[in-house]
């Protein structure tokens, strides 16, 4: 009788308007049987954390193509912590230079997926992160 679904927040922080990647991922996760809360463009770190809190999601995915990831990601992580959501896993997708990847991992980002990543890989990452195997 227990109807359990993985809930994922897909958000696009910052100012760039290229949301095709976020939409492709959102659709792919839906097709994998997950519930995807899609917030759309231009989200502030505060909006993302509030949405994660109210929607009680298991995991948050950010789409970043503006190059602002090194300043936005720490703010999202701080807002999540502020809301008591430090256990919610964060992954990012988009254009992330190789040099930044270890630094983002160190901040607490659990997965980084650039263009061309097979959707199955992201699905598998989420299932492992939320313990839904």
């Amino acid at each position, binding site marked *: *009788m*227990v109807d359990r*679904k993985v809930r994922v927040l897909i958000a696009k922080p910052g100012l760039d308007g290229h949301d095709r990647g976020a939409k492709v991922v959102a659709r792919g996760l839906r097709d994998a049987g*997950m519930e*995807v809360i899609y917030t759309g463009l231009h989200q*502030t770190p505060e909006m993302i954390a509030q949405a994660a809190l*109210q929607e009680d999601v*298991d995991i948050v995915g950010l789409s970043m193509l503006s190059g602002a990831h090194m300043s936005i990601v720490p703010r999202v992580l701080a807002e999540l912590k502020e809301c*008591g959501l430090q256990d919610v896993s964060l992954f990012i997708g988009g254009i992330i230079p190789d040099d930044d990847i270890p630094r983002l991992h160190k901040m607490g980002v659990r997965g980084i997926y650039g263009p061309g990543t097979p959707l199955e890989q992201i699905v598998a990452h989420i299932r492992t992160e939320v313990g839904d195997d």
Partner: protein
Amino acid sequence: MSALRGERYDSSALAQIVTQALGGNRRAIAQLITVVEQGGPAAREVLAQVYPRTGQAHLIGVTGAPGSGKSTLVNEMAKAYRRQDLEVGIIAVDPTSPFSGGAILGDRIRMRDVATDQHIFIRSMATRGSLGGLARATADATRVLDAAGYPVILIETVGAGQSEVEIARFAHTTVVLQVPASGDEIQAIKAGILEVADIIVVNKADLPGADNAAAALEAMLDLNSVPTGPHHGRDATAQPSTGDADSIEHHWRPPVLKTCALRGTGVPELIEAVQAHRAHQQRSEYSRLKERERVEGELRGILSQALLRELLNRLPAAELERTVARILAREQDPYAAAQVLMAQAGISQNRKESTA
């Protein structure tokens, strides 16, 4: 995953979260909604504690075709209620994909204005497809918000099926959205709009055809509001049946309002109408009867699901399979098969005839 997810849960941790949620803690509220949405024993434990605190909120259903502007209007309505210093809960329902069981819940896109308001709580829900399950999960999520002290709860659903009608039954006030050029008044009759709506809104009223749409809906309402008493040569001895809510003339004619949700035009008038409807309901006998009917309907629904589960528990697992195969082979009809299965489970059908 949180300790509250899945079949196993920690009862004392759950009780603590209930206490926090009743005190208004937003994280606890979010967690409880997850629990009640999942159903099962943890959900029942939560509802047992939450239920006595419910019944305070004004539940407002907002329904209409996809793209008619529901989320945008709900966003504007929430802002209007905030101007009255009322806290607002929002439950936004989007469909589950019948193929994958997943869903994209996108109502927050249109609710950016209120996304960080600490006095507004927005929760997206997927229909999840189980029969009657949406109405149950939505009702129970609403109860969590109600018990947590949200005096106004907006429930947004795509108006396209039976489950939405059930939600309309659950809400105190149902707002139905129409858009210009969405078909003639016969379409409105087919869609059941006039039966469900307490308030009809023609949204996107800046588009051509809005006045025509509103006029057509008004005309249909004129047909609808023929008095039920004896008149015009109708049999004067015919008595309307008493006791069920629908037969009681409650003298509320749904107003037809025009809004342009994107700009907020017409929203103050809509809020006024919604509040007038609530006040009207509270004055009349109708709302008490409707509430009684709803509670009985809910109880019957829970009983029928529980009975079905109990019946299936009593049958050997393979028996249902074999019966389905017999029906497929045209060896037995489904009614006879159901009788046989009930007898096998020790439930006699004949008793019904003797007590009826």
